[in-house]
Protein backbone atom coordinates (compact mmCIF):
# COMPACT_ATOMS: atom_id res chain seq x y z
CA UNK A 1 0.00 0.00 0.00
CA UNK A 2 2.83 2.37 0.92
CA UNK A 3 4.58 1.58 -2.32
CA UNK A 4 1.41 2.43 -4.20
CA UNK A 5 1.13 5.81 -2.51
CA UNK A 6 4.77 6.52 -3.19
CA UNK A 7 4.39 5.60 -6.86
CA UNK A 8 1.34 7.79 -7.09
CA UNK A 9 3.16 10.70 -5.49
CA UNK A 10 6.15 10.33 -7.79
CA UNK A 11 3.95 10.13 -10.88
CA UNK A 12 1.94 13.11 -9.65
CA UNK A 13 5.10 15.17 -9.11
CA UNK A 14 6.50 14.12 -12.48
CA UNK A 15 3.31 15.17 -14.24
CA UNK A 16 3.19 18.50 -12.41
CA UNK A 17 6.89 19.00 -13.17
CA UNK A 18 6.38 18.48 -16.88
CA UNK A 19 3.36 20.82 -16.95
CA UNK A 20 5.03 23.62 -14.99
CA UNK A 21 8.44 22.96 -16.53
CA UNK A 22 7.18 23.47 -20.07
CA UNK A 23 5.92 26.92 -19.14
CA UNK A 24 9.33 27.65 -17.57
CA UNK A 25 10.83 26.28 -20.78
CA UNK A 26 8.94 28.80 -22.87
CA UNK A 27 10.00 31.75 -20.71
CA UNK A 28 13.60 30.51 -20.88
CA UNK A 29 13.35 30.32 -24.67
CA UNK A 30 12.41 34.02 -24.70
CA UNK A 31 15.44 34.94 -22.63
CA UNK A 32 17.64 32.50 -24.54
CA UNK A 33 16.61 33.94 -27.91
CA UNK A 34 17.59 37.44 -26.82
CA UNK A 35 20.93 36.25 -25.50
CA UNK A 36 21.55 33.88 -28.40
CA UNK A 37 20.99 36.49 -31.09
CA UNK A 38 22.04 39.75 -29.43
CA UNK A 39 24.45 38.53 -26.74
CA UNK A 40 22.60 40.79 -24.33
CA UNK A 41 22.10 39.65 -20.74
CA UNK A 42 18.62 40.98 -20.15
CA UNK A 43 17.77 41.57 -16.49
CA UNK A 44 14.38 43.02 -17.40
CA UNK A 45 13.08 39.71 -18.75
CA UNK A 46 11.25 38.95 -15.46
CA UNK A 47 9.50 42.29 -15.67
CA UNK A 48 8.38 41.61 -19.23
CA UNK A 49 6.92 38.40 -17.82
CA UNK A 50 5.12 40.48 -15.19
CA UNK A 51 3.78 42.86 -17.85
CA UNK A 52 2.62 39.85 -19.85
CA UNK A 53 0.67 38.70 -16.77
CA UNK A 54 -1.05 42.05 -16.27
CA UNK A 55 -1.71 42.48 -19.99
CA UNK A 56 -3.41 39.08 -20.08
CA UNK A 57 -5.32 39.86 -16.86
CA UNK A 58 -6.72 43.18 -18.09
CA UNK A 59 -7.58 41.81 -21.53
CA UNK A 60 -9.27 38.83 -19.85
CA UNK A 61 -11.34 40.87 -17.40
CA UNK A 62 -11.43 44.38 -18.90
CA UNK A 63 -12.00 43.42 -22.51
CA UNK A 64 -14.45 40.72 -21.47
CA UNK A 65 -12.52 37.95 -23.18
CA UNK A 66 -13.20 35.74 -20.19
CA UNK A 67 -16.96 36.17 -20.51
CA UNK A 68 -16.93 35.88 -24.28
CA UNK A 69 -14.60 32.94 -24.82
CA UNK A 70 -14.97 30.92 -21.64
CA UNK A 71 -12.38 29.56 -19.22
CA UNK A 72 -10.48 27.37 -21.68
CA UNK A 73 -9.96 29.67 -24.63
CA UNK A 74 -10.31 33.04 -22.86
CA UNK A 75 -7.01 33.14 -20.94
CA UNK A 76 -5.05 31.78 -23.92
CA UNK A 77 -6.42 34.38 -26.32
CA UNK A 78 -5.92 37.18 -23.77
CA UNK A 79 -2.33 35.98 -23.29
CA UNK A 80 -1.52 35.95 -26.99
CA UNK A 81 -3.04 39.42 -27.47
CA UNK A 82 -1.08 40.63 -24.45
CA UNK A 83 2.09 39.20 -25.98
CA UNK A 84 1.39 41.20 -29.14
CA UNK A 85 1.33 44.36 -27.02
CA UNK A 86 4.61 43.31 -25.39
CA UNK A 87 6.08 42.69 -28.86
CA UNK A 88 5.39 46.32 -29.71
CA UNK A 89 6.90 47.40 -26.39
CA UNK A 90 9.98 45.32 -27.24
CA UNK A 91 10.32 47.04 -30.62
CA UNK A 92 10.01 50.48 -29.01
CA UNK A 93 12.50 49.71 -26.23
CA UNK A 94 15.02 48.38 -28.72
CA UNK A 95 14.57 51.31 -31.04
CA UNK A 96 14.92 53.93 -28.32
CA UNK A 97 17.34 52.35 -25.83
CA UNK A 98 18.91 48.98 -26.54
CA UNK A 99 20.01 49.87 -30.05
CA UNK A 100 22.46 52.33 -28.51
CA UNK A 101 24.37 49.66 -26.62
CA UNK A 102 24.15 46.68 -29.00
CA UNK A 103 24.93 45.79 -32.58
CA UNK A 104 28.01 46.16 -34.72
CA UNK A 105 29.20 49.30 -33.01
CA UNK A 106 29.89 47.47 -29.75
CA UNK A 107 31.26 44.25 -31.26
CA UNK A 108 34.96 44.23 -30.58
CA UNK A 109 34.84 47.00 -27.97
CA UNK A 110 35.90 46.40 -24.40
CA UNK A 111 33.89 43.48 -22.93
CA UNK A 112 31.74 43.57 -26.11
CA UNK A 113 29.61 46.31 -24.57
CA UNK A 114 28.27 44.11 -21.76
CA UNK A 115 28.61 46.70 -18.98
CA UNK A 116 26.33 49.34 -20.52
CA UNK A 117 23.90 46.55 -21.47
CA UNK A 118 23.77 45.23 -17.90
CA UNK A 119 23.21 48.67 -16.44
CA UNK A 120 20.56 49.51 -19.02
CA UNK A 121 18.53 46.32 -18.62
CA UNK A 122 18.80 46.49 -14.83
CA UNK A 123 17.50 50.07 -15.03
CA UNK A 124 14.61 49.03 -17.27
CA UNK A 125 13.81 46.24 -14.81
CA UNK A 126 13.68 48.60 -11.82
CA UNK A 127 11.56 51.14 -13.67
CA UNK A 128 9.08 48.54 -14.92
CA UNK A 129 8.71 46.87 -11.52
CA UNK A 130 8.13 50.17 -9.72
CA UNK A 131 5.91 51.63 -12.41
CA UNK A 132 3.94 48.40 -12.11
CA UNK A 133 3.59 49.02 -8.41
CA UNK A 134 2.19 52.51 -9.05
CA UNK A 135 -0.15 51.49 -11.85
CA UNK A 136 -1.29 48.01 -10.81
CA UNK A 137 -0.98 48.27 -7.01
CA UNK A 138 0.62 45.76 -4.68
CA UNK A 139 -2.38 43.45 -4.20
CA UNK A 140 -1.66 39.96 -5.54
CA UNK A 141 -3.95 39.15 -8.45
CA UNK A 142 -4.59 36.24 -10.76
CA UNK A 143 -6.60 35.33 -13.82
CA UNK A 144 -9.43 33.60 -12.03
CA UNK A 145 -11.16 30.73 -13.76
CA UNK A 146 -12.66 27.58 -12.28
CA UNK A 147 -9.89 25.64 -14.03
CA UNK A 148 -7.17 26.49 -11.51
CA UNK A 149 -9.08 24.50 -8.89
CA UNK A 150 -10.08 21.52 -11.01
CA UNK A 151 -8.24 18.65 -12.59
CA UNK A 152 -8.47 15.91 -15.15
CA UNK A 153 -8.05 12.45 -13.73
CA UNK A 154 -5.76 10.10 -15.64
CA UNK A 155 -6.56 6.63 -14.50
CA UNK A 156 -7.14 4.68 -12.45
CA UNK A 157 -3.90 3.28 -13.86
CA UNK A 158 -3.26 0.29 -11.65
CA UNK A 159 -6.04 -1.32 -9.69
CA UNK A 160 -8.50 1.22 -8.40
CA UNK A 161 -6.37 3.53 -6.38
CA UNK A 162 -3.60 4.85 -8.58
CA UNK A 163 -4.60 7.96 -10.54
CA UNK A 164 -2.71 11.04 -11.69
CA UNK A 165 -4.49 14.37 -11.56
CA UNK A 166 -3.65 17.06 -14.07
CA UNK A 167 -4.62 20.55 -12.98
CA UNK A 168 -6.67 22.02 -15.83
CA UNK A 169 -5.16 25.50 -15.79
CA UNK A 170 -1.63 24.07 -15.77
CA UNK A 171 -2.48 21.63 -18.54
CA UNK A 172 -3.68 24.40 -20.80
CA UNK A 173 -0.58 26.43 -19.94
CA UNK A 174 1.49 23.37 -20.88
CA UNK A 175 -0.26 22.96 -24.23
CA UNK A 176 0.06 26.63 -25.15
CA UNK A 177 3.75 26.68 -24.13
CA UNK A 178 4.67 23.58 -26.11
CA UNK A 179 2.83 24.76 -29.23
CA UNK A 180 4.40 28.24 -29.08
CA UNK A 181 7.90 26.85 -28.44
CA UNK A 182 7.55 24.41 -31.35
CA UNK A 183 6.36 27.22 -33.62
CA UNK A 184 9.40 29.27 -32.63
CA UNK A 185 11.81 26.40 -33.36
CA UNK A 186 10.27 25.93 -36.81
CA UNK A 187 10.44 29.66 -37.43
CA UNK A 188 14.13 29.83 -36.48
CA UNK A 189 15.11 26.68 -38.35
CA UNK A 190 13.09 26.95 -41.53
CA UNK A 191 12.06 30.47 -42.46
CA UNK A 192 14.27 32.99 -44.21
CA UNK A 193 13.75 35.50 -41.40
CA UNK A 194 14.74 32.83 -38.87
CA UNK A 195 17.92 32.08 -40.81
CA UNK A 196 18.62 35.79 -41.06
CA UNK A 197 18.41 36.06 -37.26
CA UNK A 198 20.85 33.17 -36.93
CA UNK A 199 23.22 34.74 -39.43
CA UNK A 200 23.11 38.09 -37.61
CA UNK A 201 23.81 36.22 -34.36
CA UNK A 202 26.61 34.16 -35.85
CA UNK A 203 28.62 36.96 -37.41
CA UNK A 204 27.12 40.48 -37.40
CA UNK A 205 29.89 41.88 -39.56
CA UNK A 206 29.56 39.28 -42.31
CA UNK A 207 25.77 39.59 -42.06
CA UNK A 208 26.09 43.29 -42.86
CA UNK A 209 28.17 42.42 -45.93
CA UNK A 210 25.29 40.19 -47.07
CA UNK A 211 22.94 43.16 -46.84
CA UNK A 212 21.31 42.04 -43.58
CA UNK A 213 20.32 44.98 -41.38
CA UNK A 214 21.72 43.69 -38.09
CA UNK A 215 19.92 46.27 -35.96
CA UNK A 216 16.59 45.29 -37.52
CA UNK A 217 17.36 41.60 -36.96
CA UNK A 218 18.21 42.30 -33.31
CA UNK A 219 15.01 44.28 -32.91
CA UNK A 220 12.91 41.37 -34.18
CA UNK A 221 14.78 38.90 -31.96
CA UNK A 222 14.39 41.13 -28.90
CA UNK A 223 10.68 41.73 -29.48
CA UNK A 224 10.00 38.03 -30.11
CA UNK A 225 11.97 37.12 -26.99
CA UNK A 226 9.92 39.58 -24.93
CA UNK A 227 6.65 38.29 -26.43
CA UNK A 228 7.51 34.63 -25.77
CA UNK A 229 8.23 35.31 -22.12
CA UNK A 230 5.01 37.35 -21.93
CA UNK A 231 3.04 34.36 -23.23
CA UNK A 232 4.59 32.19 -20.52
CA UNK A 233 3.69 34.94 -18.03
CA UNK A 234 0.05 35.06 -19.10
CA UNK A 235 -0.16 31.30 -18.71
CA UNK A 236 1.45 31.31 -15.25
CA UNK A 237 -1.06 33.99 -14.28
CA UNK A 238 -3.89 31.47 -14.64
CA UNK A 239 -2.66 29.36 -11.73
CA UNK A 240 -0.27 31.53 -9.74
CA UNK A 241 -1.02 34.81 -7.92
CA UNK A 242 1.24 37.67 -8.96
CA UNK A 243 2.17 41.26 -8.07
CA UNK A 244 4.46 43.79 -9.76
CA UNK A 245 7.61 42.31 -8.16
CA UNK A 246 6.90 38.79 -9.38
CA UNK A 247 9.51 39.23 -12.12
CA UNK A 248 12.33 38.78 -9.64
CA UNK A 249 11.13 35.28 -8.69
CA UNK A 250 10.96 34.20 -12.29
CA UNK A 251 14.03 35.89 -13.69
CA UNK A 252 16.07 33.70 -11.37
CA UNK A 253 14.31 30.59 -12.66
CA UNK A 254 14.85 31.80 -16.22
CA UNK A 255 18.56 32.35 -15.76
CA UNK A 256 18.95 28.98 -14.07
CA UNK A 257 17.12 27.35 -16.97
CA UNK A 258 19.07 29.15 -19.68
CA UNK A 259 22.44 28.46 -18.05
CA UNK A 260 21.43 24.86 -17.45
CA UNK A 261 20.51 24.45 -21.10
CA UNK A 262 23.76 26.02 -22.24
CA UNK A 263 23.89 29.77 -22.74
CA UNK A 264 23.07 30.64 -26.32
CA UNK A 265 21.28 27.41 -27.22
CA UNK A 266 17.57 28.05 -27.75
CA UNK A 267 16.57 24.41 -27.75
CA UNK A 268 18.67 23.93 -24.65
CA UNK A 269 16.85 26.80 -22.94
CA UNK A 270 13.57 24.92 -23.24
CA UNK A 271 15.00 21.70 -21.79
CA UNK A 272 16.73 23.73 -19.09
CA UNK A 273 13.41 25.28 -18.08
CA UNK A 274 11.74 21.88 -18.15
CA UNK A 275 14.48 20.48 -15.90
CA UNK A 276 13.92 23.31 -13.43
CA UNK A 277 10.19 22.53 -13.34
CA UNK A 278 10.83 18.82 -12.75
CA UNK A 279 13.37 19.45 -10.01
CA UNK A 280 11.05 21.93 -8.34
CA UNK A 281 8.09 19.55 -8.29
CA UNK A 282 10.02 16.36 -7.50
CA UNK A 283 11.76 18.08 -4.61
CA UNK A 284 8.39 18.41 -2.86
CA UNK A 285 8.45 14.64 -2.36
CA UNK A 286 11.36 14.89 0.05
CA UNK A 287 11.57 18.55 1.01
CA UNK A 288 9.12 21.05 2.47
CA UNK A 289 7.45 23.19 -0.21
CA UNK A 290 9.28 26.30 1.00
CA UNK A 291 12.57 24.71 -0.06
CA UNK A 292 11.50 24.13 -3.70
CA UNK A 293 13.71 26.91 -4.98
CA UNK A 294 16.63 25.84 -2.82
CA UNK A 295 16.42 22.43 -4.49
CA UNK A 296 16.57 24.10 -7.89
CA UNK A 297 19.83 25.78 -7.04
CA UNK A 298 21.43 22.71 -5.52
CA UNK A 299 20.73 20.75 -8.71
CA UNK A 300 21.79 23.76 -10.75
CA UNK A 301 25.14 23.96 -8.96
CA UNK A 302 25.74 20.24 -9.35
CA UNK A 303 25.03 20.34 -13.10
CA UNK A 304 27.18 23.41 -13.64
CA UNK A 305 30.01 21.77 -11.69
CA UNK A 306 29.83 18.63 -13.78
CA UNK A 307 28.99 20.24 -17.15
CA UNK A 308 29.99 23.92 -17.18
CA UNK A 309 28.88 24.30 -20.81
CA UNK A 310 25.31 23.43 -19.75
CA UNK A 311 23.29 20.32 -20.46
CA UNK A 312 22.90 21.05 -24.15
CA UNK A 313 25.62 23.63 -24.73
CA UNK A 314 28.20 23.14 -27.43
CA UNK A 315 31.13 25.51 -27.46
CA UNK A 316 30.98 26.09 -31.22
CA UNK A 317 27.26 26.71 -31.34
CA UNK A 318 25.77 30.14 -30.91
CA UNK A 319 22.12 29.47 -31.31
Amino acid sequence: MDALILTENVLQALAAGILVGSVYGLMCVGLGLIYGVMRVINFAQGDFLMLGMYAALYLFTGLGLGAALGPYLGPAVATVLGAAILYVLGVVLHQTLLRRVTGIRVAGTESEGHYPQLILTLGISLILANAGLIVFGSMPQSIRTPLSASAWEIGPLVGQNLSVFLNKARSIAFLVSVVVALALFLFIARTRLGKTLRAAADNPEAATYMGIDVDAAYRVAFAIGVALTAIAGGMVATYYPFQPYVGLEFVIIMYAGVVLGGFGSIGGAFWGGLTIGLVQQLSTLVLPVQLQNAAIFVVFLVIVLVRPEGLFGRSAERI
Partner: protein
Amino acid sequence: MLSVERLCVAYGGLRALIDVSVEVGAGQFAAIVGPNGAGKTTLFKSISGIVAPVSGAIRFDGQDLLAIAPAARAQLGIAHVPEGRQVFKALSVLENLEMGAHPLRARALWARNLEQIFALFPVLAQRRSQLAGTLSGGEQQMLAIGRGLASAPRLLMLDEPSMGLAPTIVDQIFERIRGIHREAGIAVLLVEQRVAEALESCDRGYVLESGRVVLEGTHDTLIRDERVKRAYLGM
Protein backbone atom coordinates in the same frame (compact mmCIF):
# COMPACT_ATOMS: atom_id res chain seq x y z
CA MET B 1 32.01 51.64 -61.59
CA LEU B 2 33.70 51.96 -58.19
CA SER B 3 35.77 54.98 -57.47
CA VAL B 4 37.43 55.75 -54.18
CA GLU B 5 38.60 59.34 -54.03
CA ARG B 6 41.21 60.69 -51.61
CA LEU B 7 39.94 58.50 -48.78
CA CYS B 8 41.29 59.08 -45.28
CA VAL B 9 40.51 56.75 -42.38
CA ALA B 10 41.76 56.99 -38.81
CA TYR B 11 41.39 54.70 -35.80
CA GLY B 12 41.65 56.93 -32.76
CA GLY B 13 44.63 59.08 -33.64
CA LEU B 14 46.18 56.44 -35.85
CA ARG B 15 45.91 57.13 -39.56
CA ALA B 16 45.12 53.93 -41.43
CA LEU B 17 44.48 55.34 -44.91
CA ILE B 18 45.84 58.59 -46.31
CA ASP B 19 44.48 60.07 -49.54
CA VAL B 20 43.82 56.70 -51.12
CA SER B 21 42.27 56.77 -54.58
CA VAL B 22 41.28 53.56 -56.34
CA GLU B 23 39.31 53.06 -59.54
CA VAL B 24 37.60 49.90 -60.78
CA GLY B 25 35.89 50.01 -64.16
CA ALA B 26 32.92 47.81 -65.12
CA GLY B 27 34.11 44.26 -65.71
CA GLN B 28 37.65 45.14 -64.72
CA PHE B 29 40.00 43.13 -62.53
CA ALA B 30 41.83 45.37 -60.08
CA ALA B 31 44.33 44.20 -57.48
CA ILE B 32 45.60 45.93 -54.38
CA VAL B 33 48.81 44.48 -53.02
CA GLY B 34 51.02 45.41 -50.14
CA PRO B 35 52.37 44.17 -46.83
CA ASN B 36 50.44 43.39 -43.68
CA GLY B 37 49.01 46.46 -41.99
CA ALA B 38 49.12 48.59 -45.13
CA GLY B 39 45.40 49.36 -44.77
CA LYS B 40 44.00 46.98 -47.38
CA THR B 41 41.29 45.54 -45.14
CA THR B 42 40.45 49.01 -43.83
CA LEU B 43 39.82 50.14 -47.40
CA PHE B 44 37.40 47.23 -47.92
CA LYS B 45 35.63 47.91 -44.65
CA SER B 46 35.16 51.55 -45.65
CA ILE B 47 33.62 50.50 -48.94
CA SER B 48 31.23 48.16 -47.08
CA GLY B 49 30.46 50.74 -44.42
CA ILE B 50 31.83 48.96 -41.35
CA VAL B 51 34.44 51.70 -40.93
CA ALA B 52 33.53 55.37 -41.34
CA PRO B 53 36.13 57.47 -43.18
CA VAL B 54 37.33 60.87 -41.93
CA SER B 55 37.28 62.43 -45.37
CA GLY B 56 37.13 61.53 -49.03
CA ALA B 57 34.44 59.98 -51.18
CA ILE B 58 33.40 56.55 -52.38
CA ARG B 59 31.17 56.31 -55.43
CA PHE B 60 29.51 53.32 -57.00
CA ASP B 61 27.94 53.95 -60.39
CA GLY B 62 28.08 57.64 -59.60
CA GLN B 63 26.11 57.22 -56.35
CA ASP B 64 27.61 58.48 -53.10
CA LEU B 65 28.15 55.23 -51.16
CA LEU B 66 28.85 57.00 -47.88
CA ALA B 67 25.27 58.28 -47.86
CA ILE B 68 23.91 54.71 -48.14
CA ALA B 69 23.44 52.54 -45.03
CA PRO B 70 26.01 49.70 -44.80
CA ALA B 71 23.38 46.95 -45.09
CA ALA B 72 21.84 48.62 -48.15
CA ARG B 73 25.12 48.56 -50.08
CA ALA B 74 24.86 44.86 -50.92
CA GLN B 75 21.59 45.68 -52.72
CA LEU B 76 23.58 47.77 -55.21
CA GLY B 77 25.55 44.74 -56.35
CA ILE B 78 28.64 44.90 -54.16
CA ALA B 79 29.72 41.58 -52.65
CA HIS B 80 32.38 41.59 -49.94
CA VAL B 81 34.19 38.32 -49.29
CA PRO B 82 35.88 39.23 -46.03
CA GLU B 83 39.33 38.48 -44.70
CA GLY B 84 39.41 35.26 -42.72
CA ARG B 85 36.34 33.99 -44.63
CA GLN B 86 33.82 34.75 -41.85
CA VAL B 87 31.32 32.14 -42.94
CA PHE B 88 28.28 31.68 -40.68
CA LYS B 89 29.70 28.76 -38.72
CA ALA B 90 26.45 27.57 -37.13
CA LEU B 91 24.54 27.63 -40.42
CA SER B 92 24.68 24.92 -43.04
CA VAL B 93 26.50 25.42 -46.34
CA LEU B 94 23.23 25.88 -48.18
CA GLU B 95 21.94 28.34 -45.57
CA ASN B 96 25.16 30.34 -45.91
CA LEU B 97 24.58 30.61 -49.65
CA GLU B 98 20.94 31.54 -49.02
CA MET B 99 22.11 34.38 -46.77
CA GLY B 100 24.39 35.53 -49.58
CA ALA B 101 21.27 35.81 -51.71
CA HIS B 102 19.75 38.30 -49.30
CA PRO B 103 19.43 41.19 -51.79
CA LEU B 104 16.04 41.02 -53.51
CA ARG B 105 17.64 41.05 -56.94
CA ALA B 106 19.63 37.96 -56.01
CA ARG B 107 16.60 36.03 -54.73
CA ALA B 108 15.05 36.17 -58.18
CA LEU B 109 18.21 34.60 -59.64
CA TRP B 110 18.73 32.13 -56.78
CA ALA B 111 18.15 28.85 -58.65
CA ARG B 112 20.42 29.81 -61.54
CA ASN B 113 23.14 31.21 -59.30
CA LEU B 114 23.10 28.19 -57.00
CA GLU B 115 23.64 25.91 -59.97
CA GLN B 116 26.58 28.01 -61.12
CA ILE B 117 28.12 28.12 -57.65
CA PHE B 118 27.86 24.33 -57.33
CA ALA B 119 29.39 23.94 -60.79
CA LEU B 120 32.27 26.20 -59.76
CA PHE B 121 32.80 24.54 -56.38
CA PRO B 122 31.40 20.98 -56.55
CA VAL B 123 32.56 20.30 -52.99
CA LEU B 124 29.94 22.77 -51.71
CA ALA B 125 27.21 20.71 -53.37
CA GLN B 126 28.49 17.57 -51.63
CA ARG B 127 28.52 19.31 -48.26
CA ARG B 128 25.39 21.39 -48.66
CA SER B 129 23.76 20.31 -45.39
CA GLN B 130 26.96 20.29 -43.32
CA LEU B 131 27.53 23.13 -40.82
CA ALA B 132 29.95 25.66 -42.31
CA GLY B 133 32.05 25.62 -39.13
CA THR B 134 32.99 22.00 -39.81
CA LEU B 135 34.47 22.69 -43.27
CA SER B 136 38.22 22.86 -43.92
CA GLY B 137 39.84 26.25 -44.48
CA GLY B 138 39.89 25.86 -48.26
CA GLU B 139 36.26 24.77 -48.34
CA GLN B 140 35.29 27.70 -46.13
CA GLN B 141 37.03 30.04 -48.56
CA MET B 142 35.12 28.49 -51.44
CA LEU B 143 31.92 28.92 -49.44
CA ALA B 144 32.75 32.55 -48.71
CA ILE B 145 33.30 33.21 -52.41
CA GLY B 146 30.16 31.25 -53.31
CA ARG B 147 28.20 33.24 -50.75
CA GLY B 148 29.45 36.43 -52.39
CA LEU B 149 28.44 35.16 -55.84
CA ALA B 150 24.97 34.21 -54.57
CA SER B 151 24.26 37.93 -54.22
CA ALA B 152 24.47 38.26 -58.02
CA PRO B 153 27.14 40.95 -57.67
CA ARG B 154 28.48 43.34 -60.26
CA LEU B 155 31.55 43.95 -58.13
CA LEU B 156 33.17 41.13 -56.17
CA MET B 157 35.57 42.31 -53.46
CA LEU B 158 37.93 39.60 -52.23
CA ASP B 159 40.02 40.20 -49.13
CA GLU B 160 43.03 37.86 -49.02
CA PRO B 161 41.39 34.71 -50.31
CA SER B 162 44.73 32.90 -49.99
CA MET B 163 45.10 33.49 -46.26
CA GLY B 164 46.08 30.39 -44.33
CA LEU B 165 45.58 27.99 -47.24
CA ALA B 166 47.88 25.35 -48.73
CA PRO B 167 49.57 26.42 -52.01
CA THR B 168 47.68 23.91 -54.17
CA ILE B 169 44.35 25.16 -52.80
CA VAL B 170 45.45 28.75 -53.37
CA ASP B 171 46.19 28.00 -57.05
CA GLN B 172 42.75 26.43 -57.37
CA ILE B 173 41.04 29.42 -55.79
CA PHE B 174 42.88 31.96 -57.95
CA GLU B 175 42.00 29.98 -61.04
CA ARG B 176 38.31 30.04 -60.06
CA ILE B 177 38.46 33.79 -59.41
CA ARG B 178 39.92 34.37 -62.86
CA GLY B 179 37.19 32.16 -64.29
CA ILE B 180 34.45 34.14 -62.52
CA HIS B 181 35.89 37.36 -63.90
CA ARG B 182 36.30 36.04 -67.43
CA GLU B 183 33.06 34.15 -67.82
CA ALA B 184 30.56 36.07 -65.73
CA GLY B 185 32.00 39.48 -66.55
CA ILE B 186 31.91 40.46 -62.87
CA ALA B 187 34.31 43.24 -61.86
CA VAL B 188 36.80 42.00 -59.26
CA LEU B 189 38.66 43.97 -56.63
CA LEU B 190 41.25 41.70 -55.06
CA VAL B 191 43.37 42.44 -52.02
CA GLU B 192 46.36 40.16 -51.62
CA GLN B 193 49.67 39.67 -49.94
CA ARG B 194 50.63 37.17 -52.63
CA VAL B 195 51.76 39.82 -55.02
CA ALA B 196 52.84 37.63 -57.94
CA GLU B 197 49.51 35.81 -58.24
CA ALA B 198 47.46 38.95 -57.75
CA LEU B 199 49.35 41.01 -60.30
CA GLU B 200 49.36 38.19 -62.82
CA SER B 201 45.60 38.34 -63.29
CA CYS B 202 44.83 42.03 -62.89
CA ASP B 203 44.06 44.71 -65.45
CA ARG B 204 45.10 47.38 -63.02
CA GLY B 205 47.05 47.24 -59.79
CA TYR B 206 47.78 49.35 -56.75
CA VAL B 207 50.58 49.00 -54.25
CA LEU B 208 49.52 50.12 -50.80
CA GLU B 209 52.12 50.78 -48.09
CA SER B 210 51.48 52.31 -44.65
CA GLY B 211 48.11 53.63 -45.73
CA ARG B 212 49.22 55.28 -48.98
CA VAL B 213 49.10 54.21 -52.60
CA VAL B 214 52.79 54.26 -53.46
CA LEU B 215 52.45 52.88 -56.94
CA GLU B 216 49.69 52.23 -59.42
CA GLY B 217 49.36 51.28 -63.01
CA THR B 218 48.36 48.68 -65.52
CA HIS B 219 49.35 45.05 -65.29
CA ASP B 220 52.31 45.58 -67.64
CA THR B 221 53.77 48.65 -65.95
CA LEU B 222 53.57 47.05 -62.52
CA ILE B 223 55.22 43.75 -63.30
CA ARG B 224 58.05 45.58 -65.09
CA ASP B 225 58.54 48.07 -62.27
CA GLU B 226 61.95 47.64 -60.62
CA ARG B 227 60.67 48.38 -57.13
CA VAL B 228 57.87 45.84 -57.40
CA LYS B 229 60.28 43.25 -58.74
CA ARG B 230 62.73 43.80 -55.90
CA ALA B 231 60.33 44.21 -53.01
CA TYR B 232 57.58 41.76 -53.88
CA LEU B 233 58.48 39.44 -56.68
CA GLY B 234 61.94 38.51 -55.37
CA MET B 235 63.71 39.24 -58.63
